[in-house]
């Protein structure tokens, strides 16, 4: 009688500490999840190596993309604004416009090409000298070729509208071909990178899922015992979820380190390349919050990859 009373009391005791039970279970799972990695350290390291390389690829591309977008402006120094005069503009009108141009902000250099110079240039470049001679009158207008100081799209837009408002100006043309091409390349690279991020993220999920599947098999015996003595599904699967998260987190850390070395390795040849263009580009690696984001992504992918497979495989194991 006193025994059954004790049993009852013991059962009451357990219910009271449900939060403590929860914490104790998570601590147990954390420990056992970690032990799964250290049980076969070499195999775990190999898995983490594969995962971190898989993470480095998309992250590296994102970083390079970010750098490219940041330095697009440096590469836009070729931007040229052409201001076409009205065809019938006289020399006085041209010099009047030049004076007006000199008062406009954000202009670095002004170069005037008269209709005759323009025609001579065209004849030289195109080789159509004979045909041009038959034209009689010169069809080309006078042209101011302008290089702006501030090359940002916003500043150039303002400049263009200012130039259009000048007297005797027929049209303002922006030589944006180079910028447009560059932006198109960057957009392409963006799409490529985002596609790769999705694909390689999926492969991280699959690699972790497969690793956890094998772990479940190798812990077959232990899982049987836990189920036999009344471990809930949550209790049984938790170490595997933690283990997946550990794999992801460790891979994220490795990936961040690999990426830093990789960028360091690229900096020198990049310096040589940019020197040829007369500029200098400093490759920006991951900042603190981006590094945190990478680790978090690794952790989440690891947890998710494990979560996707663990239930299905645990269900197959039952005590005999």
């Amino acid at each position, binding site marked *: 009688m006193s025994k059954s009373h004790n049993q009852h009391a013991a059962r009451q005791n*357990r219910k009271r500490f*449900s939060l403590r039970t929860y914490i104790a279970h998570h601590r147990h799972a954390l420990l056992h999840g970690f032990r799964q990695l250290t049980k076969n350290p070499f195999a775990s390291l190999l898995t983490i190596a594969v995962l971190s390389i898989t993470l480095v690829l998309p992250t590296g591309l994102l970083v390079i993309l970010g750098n490219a977008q940041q330095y697009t402006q440096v590469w836009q120094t070729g931007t040229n604004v052409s201001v076409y005069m009205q065809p019938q503009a006289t020399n006085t009108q041209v010099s009047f416009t030049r004076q007006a141009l000199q008062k406009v902000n954000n202009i670095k250099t002004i170069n005037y090409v008269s209709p005759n110079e323009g025609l001579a240039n065209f004849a030289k470049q195109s080789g159509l000298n004979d045909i041009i001679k038959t034209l009689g009158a010169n069809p080309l207008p006078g042209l101011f070729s302008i290089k702006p100081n501030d090359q940002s799209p916003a500043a150039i837009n303002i400049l263009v509208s200012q130039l259009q408002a000048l007297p005797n100006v027929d049209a303002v043309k922006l030589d944006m071909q180079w910028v447009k091409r560059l932006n198109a390349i960057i957009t392409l690279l963006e799409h490529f990178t985002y596609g790769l991020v999705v694909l390689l993220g999926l492969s991280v999920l699959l690699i972790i899922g497969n690793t956890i599947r094998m772990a479940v098999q190798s812990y077959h015996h232990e899982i049987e015992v836990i189920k*036999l003595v009344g471990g809930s599904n949550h209790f049984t699967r938790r170490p595997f979820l933690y283990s997946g998260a550990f794999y992801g987190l460790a891979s994220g850390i490795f990936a961040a380190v690999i990426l830093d070395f990789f960028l360091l390795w690229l900096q020198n040849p990049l310096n040589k390349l940019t020197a040829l263009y007369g500029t200098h580009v400093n490759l920006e690696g991951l900042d603190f919050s981006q590094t945190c984001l990478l680790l978090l992504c690794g952790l989440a992918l690891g947890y998710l990859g494990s979560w996707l497979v663990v239930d299905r495989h645990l269900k197959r194991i039952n*005590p005999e």
Partner: protein
Amino acid sequence: MIKFSNVHKKYANGHDALKRASLNIDSGEMVFLTGHSGAGKSTLLKLIAGLENVTRGDVWVNSQDLAKMTPRKLPKFRRDIGIVLQNPHLIPDQTVFDNVALPLILEGFSKVEMGKRVRGALDKVGLLQKELYLPEELSTGEQQRVGLARAVVNKPVLLLADEPTGNLDPELSREIMQLFTDFNNVGTTVLIATHDVELINEFPFRVINIEQGQLSEANNVKVA
């Protein structure tokens, strides 16, 4: 404690393991279940532990209708039952202490209380000195006693054993059986499946015989 009424168990391969079995075991009883191997002893125990489902009929264990037991409630139900199998099912890379502590971890006991209980159970089975050993460092009989310690550490209301002495010599078997009677003496209901008729004749408990899936009460020699 255990009530079977018209229980029928048919396996997927068509084998009828139990046919219209009815059974009643009261709280605090100690009962032997005998029969040839393959007669249905293990099936009966699995049904009680919720490891298998009945095909027809009702099974009540510890005041709970197993037909209404959802998979979510099953672990909680099983924590009130101690199970000992012929193979003790120990976790090979954990110490004796950790193996025995597992049911207490599930229940969320504090470290201090856990230590007390585990050592109490190990003391009971005579293995207090070996709590830091790994299962492979123990003899078969000792491993079986660790399994028994794990089964009772949570003070279950019901103790089920399937051929617990199957791998042991008569001397060790008698010791293990004595331990079961000790647990029964403190109020635990005990059901042991064994084919060792000689051994159970030494104990004055109720015997249920199972033959080709049918149950019958057998008179124990000593009681008769």
